[in-house]
């Protein structure tokens, strides 16, 4: 944990120096590099723990999620969203769900984000355009829902405080493989699976119909 906090602190300091004194970057970069290397050498035992890597990836996930909202260029936001989805895939790996991790990358980072990229490229949004929040219920609703969500998260953290930081949910042989998941999907959860597939087909046909109607 010390290592993680130290590295995050160094990265933050480096970013601050870059932003406020653009001419002093090189010196501070050198200091930060040397300090980081010493920290890594002293705390090298932490490099082999799951906690360190999970913490690091969690930090990157939060940072990229923040940048998705805060970055003025929509294209860069899309790129950070891809990074964020990758971090989520890595979290699946930590929980031994290797099949879900691969699917997360294929479906979200691979297929859906390409469409996002495509649309933004075609519209050629250079800087943030047309995002003007008007009055109405949206702003207070967002505030209430956000507070509620933060409360739930806080409650979850308090509730689980004394448990191990990362515990694999299943230690059985073959947990999280495609075979294991297939047996569950086509056995116990068959009805939910088929219902979801019908819903998806209906949505797809509806989308095609709506798009075609505008064409004529």
């Amino acid at each position: 944990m010390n290592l993680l906090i130290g590295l995050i602190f160094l990265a933050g300091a480096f970013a601050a120096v870059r932003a406020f004194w653009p001419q002093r970057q090189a010196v501070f970069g050198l200091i930060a590099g040397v300090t980081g290397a010493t920290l890594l050498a002293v705390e090298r035992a932490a490099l082999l723990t799951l906690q360190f890597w999970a913490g690091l990836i969690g930090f990157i996930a939060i940072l990229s999620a923040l940048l998705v909202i805060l970055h003025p260029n929509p294209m860069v936001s899309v790129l950070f969203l891809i990074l964020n989805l990758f971090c989520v895939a890595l979290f699946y790996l930590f929980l031994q769900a290797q099949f879900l991790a691969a699917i997360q990358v294929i479906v979200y980072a691979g297929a859906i984000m390409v469409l996002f990229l495509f649309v933004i490229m075609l519209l050629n949004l250079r800087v943030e355009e047309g995002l003007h929040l008007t009055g109405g219920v949206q702003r207070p609703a967002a505030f209430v829902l956000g507070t509620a969500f933060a409360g739930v998260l806080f409650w979850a953290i308090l509730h689980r405080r004394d448990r191990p930081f990362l515990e694999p949910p299943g230690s059985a042989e073959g947990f999280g493989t495609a075979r294991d998941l297939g047996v569950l999907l086509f056995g116990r959860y068959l009805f939910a699976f088929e219902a979801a597939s019908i819903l998806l087909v209906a949505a797809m046909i509806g989308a095609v119909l709506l798009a075609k109607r505008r064409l004529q």
Partner: protein
Amino acid sequence: MSQELTRVLIESGVKIALFFVIVLTLIAYLTLAERRVSAWIQDRRGPNRVGPFGLLQPVADGIKFLFKEAITPLNAYRPVYLLAPALIFVPALVTFSVIPVGPPVRLFGYDIPLQIADVDNGVLIILAFASMGVYGVALAGWSSNNKYSLMGGIRSSSQMISYELAMGISLVGVLMATGSLRLNDIVQQQAQRGWNMFWQLPGFIIFLTAAFAETNRLPFDLPEAESELVAGYHTEYSGMRFSMFYMAEYANMITASALLATLYCGGYHVPGLARLGLSGNVAALLGAAAFGVKMGAFLFLYLWVRWTLPRFRYDQLMNLGWKVLLPASLLHLLWVSLIVLKGWV
């Protein structure tokens, strides 16, 4: 640090370094092979001045690229512009990590598989990183802030999405026959009941066609069609950054050939080798050599097709992808599932 962990780390490190060096060398000589083969097909001599048979030509090319000026256009979006060549090059190399090159060899008392990672869902990892390749091309096109580049990037992303579908569905046929996503199991299953290439011929042809489209090679190289788009998505790149795109194209070709060899041509399996009763390591080396030969055959096919066939028109490309290959792959899937259900193979 436990001893087992140390061994695994050292073993993987050595294997990664070895694979990296081999693939990079292969890329360098593939550029030479492309020029020599094209010369041969067009009845010319090709580059034969630098070293014997022109074998040092890739070195000369590399030095030239390094010393060229790397220009960034004034209105390019710099961070993405610099990131794009890496984004296209890295997925092509990462894919190679799950491909089994040969059966395990026995060294220093350990069984060492000739594969960097023998993961349970290797096929999915390949698909995942294949879909990552789109970003490099699309972002290179967008960030250059050039109309031709943007057209190239958009063309490439729509082309890759369209052909990924047919590719994935024809792949399902192989997975159905094997019942596993592990590439090693796919190779072993082919050793038992014959290569997939023969009894899944339609799937093989669809996969081959889609692989040409995925690697942006002729006859599907519309993202960089010179006659319409100057040079497509890498119009604005120069020097080593330009050569990164070139290297990525060849790395993609190598990965696609390795995949075709593994999925449809039995990977490192040599028919009749098991009957000779050779010792483990010799058989493993022969298997790896056989894999190399199969991969080389597909690489040659890539070059051969490029210098023989003309380029498709864009609407023809899309028609082929959606109206021919996709239905054909679905029909093929039906046929394979019938065979598997009846137990004919």
